[in-house]
């Protein structure tokens, strides 16, 4: 995810949901603030990766985790709201259940002057069982660094 600073007139919700690719995947911002973000994505047949089972493609789950992780960095304390992904590792624990909305929760757990570190998990709708987890490094800029 690559994003520009949030203009004070645009809410973070509008901003994240308006990213064309996030919008194409139907992502919905559930919560954001203080280095924490929750974004969900509905089940959609166009996102199927395995036609035999109807399971959503891992790439779509990656997109959700990248967006949520980036959103947590944008809301991190002292940050300028600008970020880009440096790297993202995703572990797929088990297939997401067909028909269910996937919810991702990300924590930006540490920032330095230039880098933000993020952990995220993605869960099924029904019993909240974990589908995937990720760790990533993102670019970070302190607010005062921008004039």
């Amino acid at each position, binding site marked *: 995810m*690559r994003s*520009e600073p949030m203009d004070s007139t645009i809410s973070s919700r509008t901003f994240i949901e*308006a990213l*064309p690719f996030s919008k194409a995947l139907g992502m919905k911002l559930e919560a954001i603030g203080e280095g924490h973000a929750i974004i969900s994505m509905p089940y959609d047949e166009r996102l199927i990766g395995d036609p035999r089972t109807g399971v959503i493609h*891992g790439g779509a789950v990656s997109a959700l985790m990248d967006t949520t992780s980036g959103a947590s960095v944008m809301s991190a304390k002292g940050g300028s709201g600008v970020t880009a992904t440096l*790297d993202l590792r995703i572990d797929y624990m088990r297939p997401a259940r067909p028909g269910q909305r996937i919810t991702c929760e990300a924590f930006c757990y540490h920032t330095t002057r230039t880098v933000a570190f993020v952990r995220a998990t993605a869960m099924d709708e029904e019993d909240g069982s974990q589908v995937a987890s990720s760790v990533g490094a993102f670019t970070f800029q302190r607010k005062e660094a921008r004039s």
Partner: protein
Amino acid sequence: MSGANRPEPVQVVKERRDRALHALVAGVPYISFLGIEFDRKGDELTAILPYRDAHIGNPVLPALHGGATASFLEVTAIVGLGWSILWEEIETGAVDLAEIGPDWMPRLPKTIDMTVDYLRTGLPRDAYARARVNRSGRRYASVHVEAWQDNRARLFAQATGHFLMPTRD
């Protein structure tokens, strides 16, 4: 293959390989959703992600969404690995070629994990990627993918992933 020493006519060979590749790719909705295409030269595949406005993450720059890039790399890795398995099967005759029709679907590898490096901003133009299967065992495989836009040597993203091999039945 005939018992004589004469090689098969080129169009027969091409038609068989293209049919197998089509069977691997056409049935996956997410590949069409992204508009990804595959160019085949012998057994070498190049994945193409034609630019679409819907792939943008940052409308201000504009730049490709990291999720679109990650998806492109993962699709390239799975198809690349699936293709290397299928290639063996069709070239050795392990798969009955008459079976490969619109309803026939090869089994796909499953992603265990994937690490994506974002090296440069993804520009609003076509992107290309190639997968290299570094190890392919009975159960697990390790695949590396490189993606570029204008210059083959200037990668904008790369990824390494581990995959569970499809079970044969």
